[in-house]
């Protein structure tokens, strides 16, 4: 192996996060019992969440150094949780009834194509340096600074005279980078960290298939997952925001989408609520918009559980226990972020928090609102990014509209709509001229919201597929 090759630390980092996540899964039977590859996707998300939150808390609150020893302690400590005795043996999901030949062919083709696309992205990520804009501007640079100072309470963030863009941006993904680099004493070679982001594409596709196949048929779920893999902006572009970059939109989409869909599962167990809370806590610690998005997920989750309890005449308080646990874990992450943020003077940032307090938010947003739809549609129809995807989606959804009228679809429509409201407000009060911020960010916002949207696509396709069956 070539000296200084990025491959060993990159693969080693991926393995350690998967092992840590597998350890954490011991406490979440609903996820622990899923089929292997899907289980690994949940392990990846929970592993990154758990390691990131643990290191953030240890560094900020306990002043533990961000070094190899701390990284290994957290990785191994979480991985060893796997061996904590269980009260009941794992009850792995038994294979569903054998699928029809057509379904098996579609599943095989979709899996093969998605695997090839993910393999290509991983190969690119381990052989090519970072080309994107926002990663080096914010998270990647911050990762180098906190790594050098061995602390999330780095002086370069806390002292106002240093030229740091968005110094209050949450640190989960920089910590993911630092944990890998410190565990393997790797250099600052960006080919070590890019694969960590590329793995989020695999997690995205597997989690999407997992949650979609529980709401639509396997064939429809496979087709929806394949369409996600074929969207260039998500799966292949190395510059402007997908899994080929070190932007945090795909990780945010994974954490938020997975956490939200978990909260909607029927028969939601308290332990699953905790898992959802960890994922929503990771959402809060990934990007600034993560906090309102987590609140939206929890709010809709509460409404769904109360509605279900009312329909089945069940005690409402008991029905809300998993949501309460999810809320507690998410709130703990939020408090950690606020505690850390307080010490950092904001600068070189749009500072939406101050604007929300001082600016006439409603008036400004309504004044600019008429300009948004055209700018958004222009972003959605950029051929290099979406390859016509958004021209086809309305037709798919309308022709499968029976799916959208089902009770299960309403939360999946409501959550992205509410999140869109958050973005509209940001677009309304921004200091950027005209619709420039929409042009630069809307496609990435769509990535953040995309898991629920792709599940809706699966449900609509399922209606069409069933209609075509003899």
């Amino acid at each position, binding site marked *: 192996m070539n000296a200084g090759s990025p491959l060993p630390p990159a693969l080693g980092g991926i393995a350690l996060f998967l092992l840590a996540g597998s350890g954490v899964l011991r406490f979440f039977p609903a996820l622990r019992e899923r089929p292997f590859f899907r289980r690994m996707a949940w392990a990846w998300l929970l592993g990154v969440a758990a390691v990131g939150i643990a290191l953030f808390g240890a560094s900020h609150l306990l002043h533990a150094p961000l070094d190899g020893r701390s990284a290994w302690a957290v990785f191994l400590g979480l991985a060893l949780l796997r061996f904590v005795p269980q009260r009941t043996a794992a009850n792995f999901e038994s294979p569903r009834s054998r699928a029809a030949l057509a379904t098996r062919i579609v599943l095989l083709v979709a899996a093969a194509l998605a695997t090839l696309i993910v*393999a290509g992205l991983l*190969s690119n990520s381990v052989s090519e340096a970072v080309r994107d804009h926002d990663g080096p501007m914010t998270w990647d*640079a911050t990762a180098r600074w906190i790594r*050098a100072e061995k602390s999330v309470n780095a002086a370069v963030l806390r002292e106002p005279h240093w*030229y740091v863009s968005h110094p209050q941006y949450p640190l989960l993904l920089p910590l993911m980078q630092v944990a890998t680099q410190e565990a393997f004493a790797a250099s600052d070679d960006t*080919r070590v960290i890019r694969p960590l982001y590329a793995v989020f594409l695999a997690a995205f596709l597997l989690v999407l298939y997992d949650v979609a196949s529980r709401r639509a048929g396997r064939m429809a779920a496979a087709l929806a997952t394949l369409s996600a893999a074929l969207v260039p902006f998500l799966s292949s572009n190395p510059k402007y925001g997908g899994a080929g970059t070190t932007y945090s939109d795909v990780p945010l989409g994974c954490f938020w989408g997975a956490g939200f869909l978990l909260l909607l599962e029927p028969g939601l167990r308290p332990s699953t609520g905790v898992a959802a809370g960890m994922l929503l806590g990771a959402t809060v610690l990934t990007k600034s918009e993560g906090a309102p998005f987590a609140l939206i997920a929890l709010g809709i989750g509460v409404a769904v559980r109360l509605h279900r309890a009312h329909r089945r005449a069940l005690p409402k308080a008991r029905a809300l226990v998993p949501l309460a646990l999810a809320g507690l874990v998410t709130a703990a992450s939020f408090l950690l972020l606020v505690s850390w943020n307080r010490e950092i003077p904001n600068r070189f940032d749009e500072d939406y928090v101050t604007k929300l307090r001082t600016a006439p938010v409603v008036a400004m947003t309504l004044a600019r609102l008429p300009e948004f739809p055209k700018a958004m549609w222009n972003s959605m129809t950029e051929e290099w990014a979406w390859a016509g995807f958004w021209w086809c989606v309305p037709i798919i959804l309308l022709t499968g509209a029976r799916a959208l009228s089902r009770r299960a679809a309403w939360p999946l429509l409501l959550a992205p709509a509410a999140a869109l409201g958050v973005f509209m407000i940001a677009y309304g009060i921004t200091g950027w001229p005209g619709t420039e911020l929409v042009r630069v960010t809307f496609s990435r916002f769509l990535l953040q919201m995309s898991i629920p949207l792709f599940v809706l696509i699966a449900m609509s396709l399922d209606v069409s597929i069933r209609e*075509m069956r003899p």
Partner: protein
Amino acid sequence: MRIGARRRSGPGWKRIAGAGRAVLALGGLAAYGVFAVPRVAPACGEAIVRTRDAFWHGGESADEALEEVRGKIYMDALKKIRQTIPPDAAYYLVPIEGEGAAFPVRFDLAPRRPILLQEVRPGSLPLPGAPRWVVLARVFGAGPEIVETREYFRRESGS
């Protein structure tokens, strides 16, 4: 029974409704195909090319990989700056090509700590304890340039 009632409840209506649903279903699947089918070949081709390129570039060092992105002139300039400014030192960063150029230079020099220097007032001198070096952030042309702080202030302030 009224004639209209017979028409609405007869098997003909069911056939028409069924045919309508089938057309809609076909439309939905066709829309999916219109997006997905043309994307398969380019997506697979790109994946194969990327995997091949990964083997070809497999032996490159970190600097060689970065040179592929930034270019040789930039990398030669960057190496000189990295050798001059220690990793734990501070420096002034001047975004002479705008912020778009400052960000990659700042990142490539991290963990060195930058202080933004946008203008030098006439007759001003660097403060005691100021960083020793100024980096002019350029991504194009001659790449980033390093200048001693005193020299830069002398040049810019006309003193």
